[in-house]
């Protein structure tokens, strides 16, 4: 080792030490004390399909807050599509330097969130109160762990021109009429595309309402009794099998969430269950198609009409070094002066859970968006009627109910798919 002189070795060691120190400083560690005003607050959110929504936050809300308080807001955007909760789980577990945000699937990590009852109650009182269904998510054991913001509504997006050609002047009101229309449309070369794959929202948003509207339920209100195995569930399963075979495009049984948007916008399907994003994209990029797209509520079943909530709520991570600073920001953000225009910037893509916006003039600008407001009256959490706890989240994340329908659609007998789903539920609920 004569070629390595002593000085070279010492130089190497010095370089290593300097490198290690540099890495520590550059790692983004942010010391703070609760007594000092923070330089910035980090707010995390899934990016919106409506780009104006994020733009409004960046260009209007952030500068306004900085001007009023001197505190900078760092807006951390996670890719859309139901993946924000994974990031949030990592934030909670690693106590990463993120203060607040959209607490997607908060049932997984409520214990990692701050009690913000004072903010949630003040915001509700100030702006007409909340739709009751959402409080079952945000309020847990008498305390609020999130402030309800808005619902990414899910209802039926359909091609009005093709439905009219098939003889349907208005969107089918019952599931039977929906099947009848689907048969005719598929024969005309315009099948439905009803998602049944391992996505996040577009599958549950019609399968659960369909189950509920037939009288079926997954787990009872007590959060213990598995109630899925019933004649009502069997009817819903049989219906989906027929609908898939006679009215749907084959591919939809494996679709992830972006797939139905793609199929709809490329003329492959005549109807799907989705958020406003199809119409918004069409109006922007395919104006001719944008003129013939419309929305309808989920059809009714023997037990009524249902929708499922895709909840957007904001919360504060318990590990934030400045709880008071984060509280101040969230209260400020949800005040009418800020939140009203933020809702409007996205054309009510997030339908407000606050009753005070029921008559907001923004709803009149595009009448085709109104079903997304109306559905709030009949919308339930995906756990309904069971409590929205971690186990309910596991049912969704393991696609237990979605797969029950998907297996039936691809030929497995009704009894078998229900028995397999019940076995899956027992593994979760014990």
């Amino acid at each position, binding site marked *: 080792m004569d070629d390595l002189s*002593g000085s070279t070795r010492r130089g190497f060691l010095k370089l290593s030490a300097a490198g290690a120190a540099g890495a520590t400083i550059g790692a983004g560690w942010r010391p703070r004390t609760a007594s000092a005003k923070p330089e910035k607050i980090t707010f995390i959110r899934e990016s919106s399909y409506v780009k104006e929504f994020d733009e409004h936050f960046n260009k209007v809300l952030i500068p306004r807050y900085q001007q009023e308080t001197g505190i900078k807001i760092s807006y951390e955007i996670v890719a859309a599509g139901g993946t924000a909760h994974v990031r949030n789980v990592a934030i909670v*577990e690693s106590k990463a330097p993120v203060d607040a945000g959209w607490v997607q699937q908060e*049932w997984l990590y409520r214990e990692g969130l701050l009690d913000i009852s004072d903010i949630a109650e003040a915001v509700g009182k100030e702006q007409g109160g909340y739709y009751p269904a959402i409080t079952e998510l945000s309020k847990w054991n008498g305390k609020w762990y999130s402030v309800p913001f808005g619902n990414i509504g899910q209802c039926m997006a359909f091609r009005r021109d093709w439905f009219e050609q098939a003889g349907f002047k208005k969107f089918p009101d019952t599931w039977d009429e929906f099947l009848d229309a689907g048969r005719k449309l598929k024969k005309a070369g315009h099948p439905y595309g009803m998602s049944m794959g391992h996505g996040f929202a577009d599958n549950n948003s019609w399968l659960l309402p369909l189950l509920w509207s037939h009288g079926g339920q997954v787990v009872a209100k007590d959060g213990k009794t598995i109630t899925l195995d019933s004649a009502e569930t069997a009817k819903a399963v049989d219906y989906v099998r027929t609908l898939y075979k006679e009215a749907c*495009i084959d591919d939809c049984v*494996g679709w992830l969430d972006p797939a139905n948007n793609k199929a709809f916008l490329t003329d492959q399907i005549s109807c799907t269950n989705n958020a406003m994003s199809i119409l918004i994209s069409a109006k922007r990029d395919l104006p001719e198609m944008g003129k013939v797209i419309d929305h309808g509520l989920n059809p009714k079943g023997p037990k009524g009409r249902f929708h499922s909530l895709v909840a957007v709520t904001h919360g504060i991570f*318990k590990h934030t070094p400045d709880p008071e600073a984060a509280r101040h920001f969230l209260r400020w953000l949800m005040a009418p002066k800020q939140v009203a225009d933020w809702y409007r910037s996205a054309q009510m893509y997030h339908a407000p859970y606050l009753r005070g916006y029921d008559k907001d003039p923004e709803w009149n600008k595009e009448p085709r968006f109104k079903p997304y407001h109306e559905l709030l009256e009949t919308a339930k959490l995906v756990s309904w009627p069971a409590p929205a706890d971690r186990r309910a989240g596991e049912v969704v994340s393991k696609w237990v109910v979605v*797969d029950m329908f*998907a297996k039936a659609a691809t030929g497995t007998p009704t009894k078998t798919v229900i028995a397999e789903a019940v076995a899956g539920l027992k593994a979760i609920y014990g």
Partner: protein
Amino acid sequence: MLAPPPFRLREWLERESVFSWLLLTPPLLFLIAFLGYPFCYGFYLTFVSRPIAQPATFVGLGNFEKLWNDPIFWKAVRNTIEFTGIATVLKLAGGLGMALVLHQNFRMKGITRAVLLLPFIVPTVLSTVAWQWIFDPGMGLFNRSLINMGLVTKAQAPSWLGNPTLAMVSVILVNTWRGLPFFGITILAGLQTIPVELHETATIDGATTWGRFRHITLPLLMPVILIVTTFSIIITFFDFQLVYVLTGGGPANATHLMATYAYSISMGGGQLGLGSAAALAMVPVLGGVLILMSSYVRRT
């Protein structure tokens, strides 16, 4: 009695035993921090019930017992074995063929070799999104080609990701496409080490092309093939991105692998202990394969 020489830091650092440890320590610490610690922590998690943001409760082998009785887990195990087995065989056969072709002399050989590496170089998520478009039922490359060639009508066009069997075929196809260059280039490197004289001698002795391949090329390539196959089994067994992006494990769990299922239990279901147990369950299977392969390599 002689007094011990005074301690000099410079001389102490000059000693081989000290300096070698100084060099070894940073990578060792790195490995402990980013591999050793997560593995040990994961191992610990398998014995506890650990919902997110909640304290752990010791459950012994309870998590493994739960998995043992979980039909989705067993479906994922079967899928993983099928996925790994078929994809590895296809990659091996294709890679061997690719290497034999690339070993020939032809124009633009260098560029061709570079281009064939692309599937391996392009980020998996990016190429998988492209495959999603290729598999599209209405406007994807496959179905458009089948319809344009008159082999199927639009109504008969297969649903690549919607049919449970075809969905598995599709993920295997994409994995094979992505992993083929790894086999091809590595086996090509092995081919280039085989002395030309052996082939010349065999040709003079009247050996046919097949005979030379069977008795010279293949035996001399065997160590390379075994090593590349072992690596491929490990990578394929742990594959996550491809299935996560292409099918999410659907339809109806038809393509759920152990890695995607472990992820859905941990990050979707919030059960870190159970998810870790599902992930750790991959280790004994892989360990068995590795022991078998390495003992074969030693014998040959």
